[in-house]
């Protein structure tokens, strides 16, 4: 793409410095560093980059671990001026004191975005000088140990916190969050096991939790709009008294802030409430909830189905539902143990009498064509009065004939909405 040059003089080195900086900003770090050998004028242009991102491409081309560490340290020492973003993502080395020393060098740089993502070796203990980054707005950690020192006053500017495989002090974490008043987005994935996680975050808009926690409650999160909870419990449900059973379920949703618009709950979350009497619908309705996503719903498990329906009935303004199904069955033959259970579910579904008056769109993923799944889907069709589209994404292994059969069955089943259109497509597993 080298066009006809009209002049033979240097066309780029004389550009104003803010354009030069802009160009360097869009280069991967190694290319930016290489500009230092272009010419005399280019020698130090790159040392004022606003971001230093040490990630994949950089590691691939920089030699062995010791050399990489030497280069990183060198770059940090050479760098001048404030640094907006520092990223160290998936280096070939694991936790080491070099990382702490680099964080030390970063202390004077007024860092706003800090990303440290490890994948090799043990979790890295965040040094206490990490907690001196007072300008920090975005913090992204993977495979670390994150324990603020006791006197820590919180990151007053923190807006986005993303922790993956990070060990935190569960009992102190709620307090830490409450000391970050500007926090808008919080993601905790596979972190420590929480007993009861209380979120006090007046500006929180987006909350994602995937892990183990006996309870999650929201205290003062008026702006919370997006919530995703996947609870992984590795232990059996605790026995609880009958009277308590539905109150916990009810209480959880009562504590949710009214502003929620999108909610994702995993089936493990549904299971974490003890089985028992379930109200037909929840007393408090989240009136702004427009999208409900349920993952790994097993259509022949009564608990999943009944709770899913309870939720569908409770949210009066629910417009879209996304359900990903989960079929434990590997073989097709009837398991005698399961038949009574499946029958229970069928009975339960048939007995349902409700109308979903706002639901316009349903998306079902991982559809396997099992009887129970078909049944559940038909129930949805039969009770959604304004449904416009039901999109079913089935496993790619299903043959065309079977798909056509399924589609026929669904199209011919009774529909509450005259406009309802059923579409059946194979899943695109690459997505």
């Amino acid at each position, binding site marked *: *793409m*080298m*066009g*006809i*040059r009209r*002049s*033979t*003089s*240097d*066309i*780029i080195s004389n*550009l*104003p410095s803010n*354009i030069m900086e*802009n*160009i360097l*900003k*869009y280069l*991967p770090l*190694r*290319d930016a*560093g*290489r*500009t*230092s*050998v*272009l*010419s*005399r004028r*280019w020698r130090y242009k790159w*040392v004022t980059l606003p971001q230093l991102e040490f990630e994949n491409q*950089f590691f691939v*081309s920089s*030699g*062995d671990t*010791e*050399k990489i*560490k*030497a*280069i990183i*340290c*060198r770059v940090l*020492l*050479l760098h*001048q001026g404030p640094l907006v973003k520092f990223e160290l993502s998936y280096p070939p*080395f*694991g936790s*080491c*004191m*070099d990382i*702490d*020393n680099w964080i030390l060098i970063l202390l*004077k740089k007024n860092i706003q975005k800090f990303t440290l993502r490890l994948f090799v*070796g043990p979790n*890295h*203990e965040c*040094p*206490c*000088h990490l907690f001196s980054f007072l300008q920090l707005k975005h913090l992204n950690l993977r495979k670390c140990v994150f324990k603020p*020192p006791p006197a820590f006053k919180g990151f007053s500017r923190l807006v986005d916190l993303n922790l993956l495989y990070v060990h935190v002090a569960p009992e102190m974490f709620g307090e830490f969050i409450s000391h970050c008043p500007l926090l808008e987005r919080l993601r905790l994935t596979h972190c420590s096991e929480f007993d009861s996680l209380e979120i006090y975050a007046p500006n929180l808009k987006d909350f994602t939790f995937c892990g183990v926690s006996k309870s999650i409650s929201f205290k003062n999160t008026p702006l919370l709009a997006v919530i995703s909870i996947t609870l992984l419990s590795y232990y059996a449900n605790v026995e609880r008294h009958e009277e308590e059973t539905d109150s916990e379920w009810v209480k959880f949703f009562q504590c949710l802030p009214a502003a929620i618009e999108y909610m994702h709950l995993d089936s493990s979350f549904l299971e974490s409430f003890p089985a028992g009497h379930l109200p037909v619908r929840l007393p408090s309705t989240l009136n702004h909830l427009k999208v409900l996503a349920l993952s790994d719903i097993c259509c022949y498990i009564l608990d999943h189905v009944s709770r899913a329906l309870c939720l569908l009935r409770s949210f009066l303004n629910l417009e879209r539902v996304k359900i990903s199904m989960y079929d434990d069955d590997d073989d097709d033959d009837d398991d005698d143990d399961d038949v009574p259970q499946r029958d229970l579910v069928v009975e339960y579904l048939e007995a349902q009498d409700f109308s979903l008056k706002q639901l316009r769109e349903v998306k079902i993923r991982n559809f396997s064509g099992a009887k129970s799944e078909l049944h559940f889907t038909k129930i949805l069709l039969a009770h959604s009065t304004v449904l416009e589209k039901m999109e079913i994404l089935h496993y790619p292994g299903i043959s065309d004939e079977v798909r056509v059969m399924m589609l026929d069955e669904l199209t011919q089943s009774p529909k509450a909405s005259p406009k309802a259109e059923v579409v059946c497509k194979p899943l695109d597993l690459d997505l």
Partner: protein
Amino acid sequence: MSEGTMAVVKPEMKSYIWVQTADGSIQQVEEEVAMFCPMICREVLQTGMGSSKNYAISLPQRVNPATLGLILDYCRFHQLQGRSNKERKIFDEKFVRLDTEKLCELASAADSLQLRPLVDLTSRALARMIEGRTPEEVREIFNIPDDLTEEEKLEPLRNITDDPHIRLLNRLYARKRKELKEREQLKNIENEEERVDKRSVDDLLSFINGGDGDSKGVRAIKNKKKNRKRKDQPRNSSSNNGNGDHKKTDTVDNVASPTKSSKFQDSLPVTFSPNLEFVEDDIDDELDPAMKEKIDREVEDFARRLNSVWPKRVQESVSLGSERLVPMSVYGSGSFNRFNGFGKQQ
């Protein structure tokens, strides 16, 4: 589409802004298009210029008529609200398919008109031309003079900041490296130590080898540095004793064969690392004793200040058990707690 024709056909329908480029030529531009440029917009609103030919707004010098035409095309497309993001993206991709010289001119002109989106667009395009290319290729594309000597290309970049914090850090590392080296030599005389100890020495060494030996922006030392680089080789090989795991010989190799121009064609390690070769020798030698003492005091002071930030941490690590204590006892010096107290040894 020429503005002149438009003016004749529909004199009442649109209003125009008059602008003048550095070469003196004046033209009129549809108002909504011109106002898309912040600089023009401000001129119009603050000074009222541009309403007629006699009061044309003078555009900055970097905007010549040809470039202005391009910029106006850009503005004309993007100022329409109804366009989808996809449409805009497709337009942008086609728009920057220009030769490099035009692209540079366009970037410059857009910058002077404060048209930020266009500056970013052209910058990205220029960055794409640099990305993945060797320095020779980049020089070829942009006509950049190759005015660094071969030696200079290999010479480590100096930290030219006056930031005392950085200077002190550098100094600190240089001193610690020296101390370490002495101890290392002592240790090599002794028998084989446990693996763990050796590892940590080399870890530290290699980390500190990554530190800057040249802590000052004192340019006077510069000439002498060129000769000193050669001394790195024997140093590096001695520190490699006893631990074959760390492939530090790589750095030695790179230093040894700097003049092969083909090396520059290789990927980063060669081009990057020579620049990062650290001059290990004592810069202390060049200072008069008084200055040296002063700097030593600064360094100790700094180390103390750093230590005071994390006394708790140090206590924690001390109480955590023997694995942590081993490296600390080897070095003995209190100021080393800082390096050993955090994170885990590999």
